[in-house]
């Protein structure tokens, strides 16, 4: 009985591993295609047939001024968006949490709109607004649009952090003679930091990836995703693949570097967990099941 159960568990675990591997394979497949194609020595449209290995697209990339300029625009846009959305979102989240006033429900409703409505509706509604107030379309309209769809995410992130927040620490700070501003910068802000950082990171990610909203409000300003869209329409030149590959490599590197403190932490945590699980199994008077089978 116990043996049959063990066998079944082992089999279903194997099946689970295979299943997950297939899903991850599919998730990463198009990225692998892009990376491979960035080294593809083909020079005829539609640039899909494999013709051997080359670095030519990478050197061509650095002479493609329009593509590099679009990448620069995307970075400026993402940084401006992140700063504005994060500052404004943090302040309002704290304000809504701390002070009493009417209409919080209305504000919540306003916040959910950009989250749930399809991006295209947001794009065209801002296009209609900008046209009617005759705001020149370009970087400014892009920043406004991006801040608008990032703001709710910053607020939700900071708010989630505020939910488990211990107000007595602020009171203690005031009792010990700090004024309101000092308390905010030295007590409140550090406690909210993970929520703020999460909101900022999300804003940055949403902004650099946005196609749909930017598509309607960019005027003559090209962002990197819009440049990609243009290239796809005319059959992507593999230097777009090269830039995408570099961006992916850069992001992975950045995350590994910034999280390098985190990684050992995660490993330690996992090790503790495993020890804990093992102990639980031993004390349950059952032989530990198939540690080797774990991924």
């Amino acid at each position, binding site marked *: 009985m116990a043996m049959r159960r063990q066998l079944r568990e082992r089999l279903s675990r194997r099946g689970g591993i295979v299943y997950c591997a297939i899903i991850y394979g599919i998730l990463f497949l198009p990225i692998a295609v892009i990376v491979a194609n960035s080294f593809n020595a083909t020079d005829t449209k539609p640039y899909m047939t494999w013709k051997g290995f080359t670095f030519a697209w990478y050197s061509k990339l650095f002479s493609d001024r329009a593509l590099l300029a679009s990448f620069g625009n995307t970075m400026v846009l993402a940084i401006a968006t992140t700063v504005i959305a994060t500052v404004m979102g943090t302040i309002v989240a*704290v304000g809504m949490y701390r002070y009493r006033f009417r209409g919080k429900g209305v504000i919540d409703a306003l916040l959910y709109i950009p989250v749930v409505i399809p991006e*295209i*509706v947001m794009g065209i509604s801002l296009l209609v607004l900008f046209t009617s107030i005759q705001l020149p379309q370009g970087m400014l309209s892009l920043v406004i649009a991006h801040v608008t769809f990032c703001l709710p995410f910053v607020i939700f992130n900071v708010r989630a952090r505020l939910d488990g927040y211990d107000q007595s620490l602020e009171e203690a700070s005031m009792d010990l003679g700090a004024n309101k501003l000092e308390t905010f910068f030295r007590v409140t802000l550090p406690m909210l930091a993970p929520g703020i950082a999460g909101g900022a990171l999300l804003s940055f990610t949403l902004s650099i990836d946005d196609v749909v909203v930017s598509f309607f409000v960019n005027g003559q300003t090209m962002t990197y995703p819009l440049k990609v869209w243009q290239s796809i329409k005319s059959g992507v030149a593999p230097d777009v693949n090269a830039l*995408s590959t570099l*961006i992916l490599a850069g992001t992975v590197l950045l995350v590994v570097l910034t999280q390098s403190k985190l990684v050992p932490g995660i490993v330690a945590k996992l090790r503790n967990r495993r020890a804990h699980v093992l102990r639980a199994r031993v004390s349950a008077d059952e032989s530990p099941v198939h540690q080797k089978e774990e991924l």
Partner: protein
Amino acid sequence: MKLNSHEFRSNTLPAAITVIPAVAWLAFFVAIPLVYVLVMSFCSLDEYYNVAFQFTLGNYADLLDPNYVQIYAQSIVIAALSTAICLALGYPFAYLISRTFGEHKVILYMLVIIPFWTNSLIRIYGWRTFLGASGFLNAALVGLHLVDSPVDFLFNQAATVLGMTYDLFPFMVLPLYTAIEKLDEAQIEASHDLGAHGLSTLFKVVVPQTVSGIFSGCIMVFIPSLGAFYISDILGGGNSDVIGNLIQRQFQSGNNWPLGAALSIILIAITLILVKIYQSTGGDMESLGV
């Protein structure tokens, strides 16, 4: 309300200073534009194709054009199929990464997020490069003599459904992951101990406790796939337009903005109805989103 100077300084004033900028922003760039779209959907076009503020229901009448109705139906079918496939593939996947292989869940979760870091257009284009007539898959199939001539994988509804499913899959997995992670292990064990076999435990214990995650995942996939015009454009090649394609075309230069506005109102209406259903089943708005 009596004006109380202490109340004013300690609550009203700081509340106003902290809350008004963001609220004004949202009012001006979210609420007003949507009202504007609603107004525009009742406007007409003058002889130069400019928007004229003359009331008409003509745009809504135009929405009933059989060609359009066919595209709404197609768009809803594509969205429903994408949602169903995402759920069918995503539920067991979310269960596996959050519980069965729970000791590695941080890393497994990150691996779902990482593809997000590559622009979604580029990833959809990667599929086109993979599936195209001269793409990698056909090259392999022909090379292995499995087929004589390249197979047309692209430019049909199936390709669009694939693209939508792929692009929105994480939006299904993440809420499911959160819901499944919160499951009470003791209940599952109790169900097993009381003699229930796997499937009946799944449908009587596990699924009912994760209904909220299922609903929010479905909404997060269904609604965007009605509007994601670039996916049907790149992979469907005009043979599988969704409502988003119709709207995008009307807002291209020199086209019919009021008609596009009316189409957008339809999309907003569908969204509101789905969100209402979601809320009435006890869904929490904050668990929508990324």
